[in-house]
């Protein structure tokens, strides 16, 4: 599966990230936890982007994962983060498996809008369901880790380490997938579906697979976000939430996996500071930043890394 070099890189990445649990101040640790949780969702979009599709509705899975974890936790009193992640992933896998084949036939803006519509339907349904809090949402208790019940800074650190590990694992799995045979087919389909079909591969299957991966990642991201925030509400599925994910995915580009998480962290930092220092014009600041990124980095952050790779390869 992974070569020795890759295993070392994975372990090294995790070690560096883990150091953050010691040196980072609480607020920064929380910010990174949220950024990485959203990064997981965006990684799913990046996977779809490799097949040429951009989902404007990943909030669907972000929200479904968050609510699954919350309802499961509140109904059965389970707070174990591993268990909650697995349950959400399974539920989102099922939803993704249901919608994936339906949506895999759509392309471009239609795929984007249809996925958006699905997530808005979830938004609307949850808003109506006052039994589970309606638009006000629900709270979820702090997570435990296989019986360990930390509080305060230890809780933050535990969560941070868990997310770091999850991100590294998910990143490695997705990296493996992107560069697998099936991943190459998706990349080819992005360019020329006709050719892929005439080589005898199913574009629909490639798109469905990407979509299902996106669903599971979205569910995991939502679960982490819910546990970190302690709260879920239907806004998780609102179109502006999904739009933000797309923005991170575009900022990262589809060429590099780590770039996704770096992009997510950058966006969180920009948003957090602009909100504090320009409380009246933070949207303006964010918009300008967005435009600047799109103009300056048309291929996303990943293109910086990838260009270098190609040059090195050529030498």
């Amino acid at each position, binding site marked *: 599966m992974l070569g020795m070099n890759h295993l070392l890189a994975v372990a090294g990445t995790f070690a560096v990230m883990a150091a953050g649990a010691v040196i980072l101040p609480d607020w920064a640790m929380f910010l990174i936890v949220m950024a990485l949780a959203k990064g997981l969702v965006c990684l799913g979009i990046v996977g779809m982007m490799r097949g040429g599709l951009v989902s404007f509705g990943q909030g669907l899975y972000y929200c479904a994962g968050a609510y699954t974890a919350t309802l499961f936790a509140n109904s059965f009193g389970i707070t174990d983060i591993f268990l909650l992640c697995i349950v959400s992933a399974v539920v989102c896998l099922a939803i993704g498996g249901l919608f994936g084949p339906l949506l895999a036939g759509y392309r471009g803006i239609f795929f984007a809008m249809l996925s958006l519509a699905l997530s808005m339907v979830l938004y609307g349904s949850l808003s109506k369901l006052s039994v589970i809090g309606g638009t*006000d*949402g629900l709270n979820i208790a702090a997570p435990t880790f296989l019986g360990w019940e930390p509080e305060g800074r230890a809780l933050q650190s535990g969560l941070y380490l868990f997310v770091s590990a999850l991100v590294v694992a998910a990143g490695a799995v997705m990296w493996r997938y992107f560069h697998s045979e099936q991943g190459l087919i998706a990349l080819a389909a992005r360019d020329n579906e006709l050719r892929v079909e005439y080589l005898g591969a199913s574009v629909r299957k490639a798109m469905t697979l990407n979509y299902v991966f996106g669903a599971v990642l979205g569910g995991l991201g939502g679960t982490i976000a819910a546990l970190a925030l302690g709260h879920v509400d239907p806004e998780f599925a609102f179109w502006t939430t999904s739009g933000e994910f797309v923005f991170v995915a575009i900022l990262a580009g589809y060429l590099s996996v780590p770039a996704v998480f770096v992009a997510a962290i950058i966006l969180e930092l920009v948003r957090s500071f602009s909100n504090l220092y320009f409380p009246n014009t933070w949207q303006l600041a964010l918009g300008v930043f967005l435009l600047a990124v799109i103009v300056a980095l048309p291929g996303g952050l990943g293109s910086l890394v990838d260009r270098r790779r190609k040059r090195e390869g050529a030498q």
Partner: protein
Amino acid sequence: MKQTIRTICATLALATGLSAPAMAQDDTFKIGVITFLSGQAAESFGVPAWNGGQLLIDMLNEGGKLPAPYDKPGFGGMKIEAIVVDEAGGATKQVQEFRNLVQREQVDAVVGYVSSSDCLAVPPVADELKAFTILYDCGTPRVFEDNSFEYVFRTAAHATMDNVGLARYLKSRGFEVDSFAGLNQDYAWGQDSWADFTGAMAQLYSDATVKTALFPKFGAGQYGTEISALLREKPALIHSSNWGGDLQSFLLQATARGLHKRTQLALSAGDHVIPQLQDKMPDGIVLGARGVNGLLAKARGGDLQPLTDTLWDSYMERYGVIPVQAPFRMWQGLLGLKMAVEKAMDDNGGKKPTDEELAAAMKGLSWDAPSGRIEMALGGGHQAIQPTAIGVTKWNNETKMMELVDIEYFDARCVNPPEGMKSQDWLAQGFPGAQCD
């Protein structure tokens, strides 16, 4: 993958570099204020509230501007410094901003939240961080009915009061309501308000039938179809908890089609649109202000009049508009905080109080505000009750101002559930323990 490590190192370095904490100082009391500066709630609630807050903070810092017991400068002599954050962007963002305020900006207290969803999301974090927090505006009863929090206080009554007050007013003024309908925004606020109102009506007007319950989308702007449905159904009364632009648009469109001539309109939170609509708002609308706020406070008289008038006049002078409900709730929150700080300092020998000391002081506190006596009587001393009032709109052609007439004031214990009882149960059981004059 090597660059992965490099990028992550860089990010971590960046993050730590930004983390130098702001130094806490003993001669200032730093509060984080969160309220809507953008979006629909900015105009109706966020900006007027913050205008009122700024005004009060300036007056307190200067000292001697307000009648006793609020004549001492600042909070116990400490200068009040405020950082304001936009509440727009959803609960997710607010939890993050809350952590930033507490951990990065090291504020001494947080005062904020108009949106119920933020009020539900923030308290667990406040307790986790042991950060003293005042919820000054939001309405949902769930905050302290479903949970209890050590460091979180709500200095305004929850929304059940608004609709119980409204129903009681209708009954005591002899309105004949054999049928009614609702038009409420399609989110928790509107849904809960409608549930509270129908609950209260079921007790007070048990024969009245519900014609239709409409829930147009938040921010819909166009109410033509809903108005047609209401005209067609011909209910005796229409209840709406709409606020802001949604309420204004609804009133403009409804009055143009004569809805108010066929049916009695009752708006549970409608006072804040008076300054904008003025005579475009028809006479005879039954109107609440979520407490004895705005015009209802101005018309009340009594012991609190000097305090009310001082703030009223200063607000009018600075902003050229009457203060409506939002600044009143900000005032009661900040004045409560002032009382709590000073009480805590009395107890600890004059040091700047810790979060624990503040929480201990705030618990069960009561104080006077322009909106009446605020008592932290519910939720184990964390949830306020306050009196409320309802009036009817009447345009004064001489002053060219909208007035509220036939005002009836309700005691806090008449319109709020007693301690230990959920508002839904209180409504369902016919207001047990209610103390009305």
